[in-house]
């Protein structure tokens, strides 16, 4: 018996989410009195997992797995679950993890709980708390199947250091006919993504037009943040669809969310409720966003943001 964790990587390096899911897996393993086994695909040096409680690492090296493929990766994880006799499988909330988890659930006849925000409150019955109704509420879910799959919400559990052996061994898995083949990937590699970001700088229709996004990008650069926007901004084509956050867009679970010229409609707030600290910059003191925010500045973005950039640069230089 063990807890199996899928550790995601980007360009052969672990993502931060890999360490978060490992931390979560360690907490589950402690509750169950068992160990943590990680699956790492095409990663040379896996020793870093030893900082987060991983006992054993199954290293999979396969050129057919260079591009993420949900069916191929689900097959690898299924074989690892069988080999390790794993009872619980832990994944992140990335687009890739959410893509493969339902396929794995079918293969393993396992119940899957997504968007889980805490370690299980009980392991018999096995219950977890997850966010539902687009962060307007939490649901306590019991997973009834023998094997359980948990998708951990980004930044919900955090990193917990636990030094461990992380003994690596090679694991070879057979890959089925994939059925879906990647033609091309279009991705800005130098930009922080909303999913991975600890800080998100987001702007709305208050910015008047796409030509005014320079200062938003600059603020994001200074903070090492990702950029995002409200729905009308992407509908108007001012920003790409991938930046639209909210109930019908991407969820944001960053540590800090800075909203510039966004009114704070219920559908927008639903997507960002899981962010820990929210700052609003808006000319209208009556904007609903102020009710949902931790810190607010009533003022004109075109004056406030450039000043904030200068002051943050000075602050960063001092640090």
């Amino acid at each position, binding site marked *: 018996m063990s807890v199996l964790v899928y550790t995601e990587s980007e360009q052969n390096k672990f993502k931060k989410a890999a360490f978060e899911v490992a931390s979560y897996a360690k907490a589950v393993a402690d509750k169950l009195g068992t160990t943590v086994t990680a699956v790492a695909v095409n990663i040379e040096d896996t020793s870093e997992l030893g900082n987060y409680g991983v006992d054993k690492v199954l290293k999979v090296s396969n050129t057919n797995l260079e591009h*993420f493929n*949900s069916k191929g990766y689900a097959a690898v994880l299924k074989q690892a679950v069988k080999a390790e006799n794993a009872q619980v499988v832990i994944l992140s909330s990335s*687009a*890739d993890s*959410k*893509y493969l*988890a*339902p*396929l794995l*659930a079918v*293969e393993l006849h396992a*119940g*899957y*709980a*997504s*968007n889980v925000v805490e370690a299980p409150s009980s392991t018999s019955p096995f219950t977890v*708390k997850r*966010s*539902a*109704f*687009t962060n307007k*509420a*939490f*649901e*306590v*879910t019991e997973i009834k199947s023998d094997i359980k799959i948990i998708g951990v919400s980004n930044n919900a559990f955090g990193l917990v250091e636990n030094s461990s052996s992380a003994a690596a061994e090679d694991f070879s898995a057979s890959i089925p006919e994939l*059925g*879906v*083949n990647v*033609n*091309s*990937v*279009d*991705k*800005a590699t130098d*930009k922080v*993504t909303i999913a991975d970001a*600890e*800080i998100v700088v987001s702007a709305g229709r208050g910015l008047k037009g796409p030509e005014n996004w320079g200062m938003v990008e600059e603020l994001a650069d200074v*903070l090492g943040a990702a950029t995002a926007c409200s729905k009308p901004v992407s509908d108007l084509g001012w920003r790409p*669809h*991938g930046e639209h956050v909210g*109930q019908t867009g991407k969820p944001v679970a960053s540590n*800090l969310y800075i909203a510039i010229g966004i009114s704070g409609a*219920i559908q927008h707030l639903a997507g960002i409720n899981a962010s820990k*600290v929210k*700052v609003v910059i808006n000319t209208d003191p009556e904007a609903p966003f*102020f*009710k949902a925010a*931790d*810190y*607010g*500045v009533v*003022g*004109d973005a075109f*004056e*406030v943001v450039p000043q904030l950039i200068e*002051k*943050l640069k000075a*602050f960063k230089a001092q640090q």
Partner: protein
Amino acid sequence: MKILVCISHVPDTTSKINFTEGDTKFDTNGVQFVINPNDEFGLTRAMWFKEKQGANVTVVNVGGAETEPTLRKALAIGADAAIRVNAIAEDGFSVAKQLAKVVEDGGYDLVIAGRESIDYNGGMVPGMLAGLTGANFVNNCIALEIDGTSATATREIDGGKETVSTSLPLVIGGQKGLVEESELRIPNMRGIMMARKKPLNVVEPVAADAATNSVSFEKPAPKGAVKLVAADNLDELIDLLHKEAKVI
């Protein structure tokens, strides 16, 4: 081409979320239900395949009789037929099992579902349905073209997009991008009249166990009042974010 569009019946995005029966049930009192937004994009894309490529479009929901107005709305938008599987949607797995039976019986080439429903946010039905039926699967799908039995799709990934080629039978988890917001169809009078005459078949469920069980619900803790910082005193904001909130 036979297309099945999965429609989940969800509270309107402005709904206040409350619970009853000791926080174990969603309170539907005064809640307006709509077609799940992700499914609306998929349905409009299906209309495009109908008009341009002669596809036949069926919509399906797994749920009680209360979901029929939502299915009628999908018929008014232009679907040819509707199916309601008469079962309570217990969890993603049990819904996927019911839908797998519908797919098997109807021999659909393409199943368009949504990336996730905005109520339980499971994000699992399309993938499970693909797994159960052995179809190819593209999630977070933002563009889809079909030519014969070949398909080209674009999927949103963290920080960008990926274009893939695949083939029918295919299941997609769709979202905004499949069509633009401005292209979404709303039912017109003629559509509504025609929808009354279109078939809405109620089928009985197959045995399908749920793998998870919803135990109870909680609402997030209420928020404290916002701290306002003067626009000419941004050093204070930086100080608060650094020392109090500890986020920079």
